[in-house]
């Protein structure tokens, strides 16, 4: 998948899962604040990532993810690693 395809897919499932307006999802916005994520929501984020991309996020991976752009990059890296494997 290209970076653009991943970005589109991530935005789609975040809008669907967390019921946030698409316009609020901007690459440099803070993901936790925009989606109003609490500790329970991070569990659901793991679920939607696994169902959409087929890889499992470990909790510590979220530490380095601040913005949506961080999240797109993270997903792209993991998807690429999975494809290469």
């Amino acid at each position, binding site marked *: 998948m290209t970076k653009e395809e991943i970005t589109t897919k991530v935005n789609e499932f975040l809008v669907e899962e967390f019921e946030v307006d698409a316009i609020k999802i901007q690459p440099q916005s803070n993901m936790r604040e925009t989606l109003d994520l609490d500790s329970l929501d991070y569990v659901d984020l793991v*679920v939607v990532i696994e169902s959409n991309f087929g890889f499992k996020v470990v909790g510590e991976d979220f530490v380095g993810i601040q913005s949506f752009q961080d999240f797109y990059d993270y997903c792209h890296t993991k998807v690429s690693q999975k494809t290469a494997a």
Partner: protein
Amino acid sequence: MGIWSCIGNSLEDVKNSLYEGKSGIAFDTVRKEWGYRSGLTGKVETPHLKGVLDRRARIQLSEEAEYAYLSTIQALQHAKMDQDWMDAHEVGILFGNDSSAKAVIEAIDIIRAKKDTTLIGSGSIFQSMNCTVTMNLSTIFKLKGINFTVSAACASGSHSIGMAYLMIKWGLQDHIICGGAQEVNPFAFGSFDGLGAFSVRENDPTKASRPFDRDRDGLVPSGGSATVILEDYESAIKRGAPILAEVVGYGFSSNGEHISNSNVDGQVRSLEKALNDAGLKAKDIDYINAHATSTPGGDKAEALALDQVFGEYKPLVSSTKSMTGHECWMAGASEILYSTLMMQNDFVAPNINFENPDEASAKLNIAAKTVDKKITTFLSNSFGFGGTNSTLIIKKIS
């Protein structure tokens, strides 16, 4: 009061269904595909809560908790209790519920398939516990009073009202949301079906639930949710609440015998305890809403127990399960609501499909058709597996 049931999702619709003797029973092909002996079930409308509750609240609700949310919203509006009022007062919740099979099984299926518990998602635990109704509703409505689930098989809803009645009577609480909820899905009833307890009169679903009738062949599973709000009388008067009726007696007993067979002596003790608690005699009861589920043994035992206590006076008896099927954990609460609607509107709902009595039911004065009649005091029975018995007596406010 509020209701979400197979005979209506509003007090008005349910009142009309009761008066007209309308059945809510249907045939479910999925159950047959799954190997059920009986495909019969109460047909309950699926709630749609997107746009009503936020995502966090919604994903934590089990099927029965969704029903309970809807019946409780209605009840709060009916009782004129808004969120501001509840924020300023100590309101409790006691609800009857005794399973959340669908949520549990779906979670286990994910674990088996994915070999990973995280992938169940965050809502499952709050759907899976028996207290799913009380834990969710207490959070949604920000309740600050008593908060627990009553788990007593098919007497759960009735005991929840009995417990609330006692807590208010003893001065421990002034306002308690109570009721009963029951999931209606193929996950919930497989083992019950396997016991051979369900009617197999599949060719004519609305005739299948026939409590007290000689030709009954088992119960029809059903569900939904019923909410009633109990309040201290002085409190209700003070805030101008619409007072529908008064709980005047609560009786309870345990059979101390077989886990699934009914017991006349246990039921008689529950009936007598309720009458004693209310300070009433058998002659004071105008109408009895029977537990009678349409099983051969259970209906017979209740008929004999009712005859033993009320035989001299023969008050009108009907089982609304003839229309609703057996609403199980919900039944004790919904049947208080159904009977209160009858009391408010001066009729006794029919025990539909009662065509021929058997030796035991012939001793009772069963309303096979709707009877226009003023009711001042009614009694409602609920009995459950394990021999748990509950009897409530409700009186009209004069």
